[in-house]
């Protein structure tokens, strides 16, 4: 195994426009690693598990940093730090669920450096994969986490097509819940992808967590006003309160009138390779009062279709309990 002595040689590019960054990425043809806050990147480099020849640092690009009110909602630059997202009064007023989700990411130090774009585009934390094993996700033929001896306490309950890794992003669940749109710069053009379709599971592509491809740059996250100022709930359960990834998280937004739920979007994190919409729960909620009885009645729907692994059975009641907690007033 390689010694963890010094940083490997990496060519560094620091473009000041998205167009330049994209052109460099295109020229490097997949060999250029897009660097945002670096909180995912440096782990890979430190472990010598990935070896990018060149790095394209987005920090100097001005137009993709900051939070702005738009006619239809809020636009957040992908390079906006999680700290800024967490402390922004506009987001706190309209979408407190995102404030809470950003505030539960890792630790204050990481939130100061880590970006919203980096948080949603980060790679999975499956330790077999991160350790550099040649698993399916790394282009190999096997899932070590899903082997009879695999340690899979944190892994998927749903959608495990060969690979059982889960999405580690806390903000992703909130962004899917509020129906955000990801704005991607691709080959000189702007491509807009609903957050729900931005994340992809292993059945679609086993080596990628998102639709981002070499040369793509996530520039903004736009949140429409559709779910602004609605009732919401976010909770993340992890082994530790700080600096840990979710065992299960939940992000819920609800439109209510007179205590009755008219519409809802409920999303679970860390149970699938993508943030999982609980559509059966959402459907069952419509027209029901937001109370304990409704919560008990629909909670069981959340885990329908779950396939547990050797060590993650606890996630099933955890999911159901989080749904209950989200629906209690």
């Amino acid at each position, binding site marked *: 195994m390689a010694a963890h002595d010094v940083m490997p040689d990496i060519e560094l590019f620091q473009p000041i426009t998205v167009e330049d960054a994209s052109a460099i990425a295109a020229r490097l043809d997949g060999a250029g690693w897009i660097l945002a806050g670096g909180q995912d990147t440096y782990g890979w480099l430190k472990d010598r598990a990935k070896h990018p020849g060149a790095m394209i640092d987005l920090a100097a690009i001005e137009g993709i940093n900051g939070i702005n009110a738009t006619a239809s909602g809020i636009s957040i630059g992908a390079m906006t730090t999680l700290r800024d997202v967490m402390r922004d009064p506009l987001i706190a007023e309209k979408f407190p669920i995102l404030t809470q989700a950003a505030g539960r990411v890792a630790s204050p130090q990481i939130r100061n450096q880590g970006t919203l774009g980096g948080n949603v585009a980060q790679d999975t934390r499956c330790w077999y994969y991160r350790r550099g094993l040649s698993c399916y996700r790394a282009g190999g033929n096997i899932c070590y986490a899903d082997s009879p001896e695999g340690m899979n306490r944190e892994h998927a309950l749903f959608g495990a097509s*060969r690979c059982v890794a889960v999405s580690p992003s806390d903000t992703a669940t909130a962004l899917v819940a509020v129906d955000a749109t990801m704005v991607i710069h691709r080959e000189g053009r702007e491509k807009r992808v609903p957050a729900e379709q931005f994340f992809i599971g292993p059945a679609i592509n086993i080596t990628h967590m998102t639709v981002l491809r070499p040369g793509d740059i996530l520039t903004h996250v736009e949140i429409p006003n559709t779910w602004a100022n609605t009732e919401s709930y976010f909770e993340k359960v992890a082994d530790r309160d700080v600096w840990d990834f979710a065992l299960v998280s939940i992000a819920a937004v609800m439109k209510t009138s007179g205590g009755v739920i008219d519409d809802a979007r409920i999303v679970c994190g860390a149970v699938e390779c993508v943030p999982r919409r609980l559509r059966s729960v959402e459907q069952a909620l419509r027209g029901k009062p937001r109370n304990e009885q409704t919560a008990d009645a629909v909670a069981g729907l959340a885990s329908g279709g779950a396939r547990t692994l050797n060590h993650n059975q606890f996630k099933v009641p955890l999911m159901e309990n989080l749904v209950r907690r989200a629906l209690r007033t």
Partner: protein
Amino acid sequence: MEIVTVREDVWGREVLLGVSWDWLWVILALTFAAIVVHLLIMAVLRKQPRPSAAGKRLTRHDNFDRSFHWIMAISTLVLLFTGVLPIIGYDFNWLTIHWIAGLVLTGAVLLHVIRAVFFQDFGSMVVAPKDLKEPFEKGRKPGKYSLAQKGMHHAMTLLVLVVIGTGLVLFLQIDTPWWDRPNSLAESTLGWMFVLHGVSTLGLVGLTALHVYFALRPEKRFYTRSMISGWISEDEFSANHDPARWMPDETARS
């Protein structure tokens, strides 16, 4: 360019992953070159008068065989597209479509083998010593199938059997409605399965492209028609086949 992809794991051991998919472009380029060369040769050669499709119709393929052929053809194309497109960067939910098409192909091949061996003239597809004289003796005509058709069929058979055999082993490793993925095969065994599955897939890409090309060639189109409607004309028969080696039935329609 490597033939297979190998990766070193964290313990420094080499892990066999599968065939190197750079070969896909080599196979496509070679196939394209072969087609271009054939087109040039055929353009230079003097055009032979084409036999008429009019007149009495003789049965070349019955309904059963035609159905099998098209089921196998469609399932093979679905398998090739669902297998290769994700490799070259088109993302979609391919695996379920792939294994369903694989099961269809397996069933069709199995029935075809049983029918060909026990209920049909199996010898008509076997390459006999006298077939080998075909390319060298002008005017020598084949029985039901020419040496080229037999060669294509045998190459296809070999590749399809390998792709089915390895595909079934890999199929046992994934989630299906009938069982949960066991994840039980050793990594090295899986590596070999992927190598064989990949090599046979590459071969099938080339052969399928050539097969489609020849099916569309003007002088061979009557064979394609016979695979759709079942018949060839008496004129086409006598121009291309030796009645001493194959005598087809006359169809009811003419």
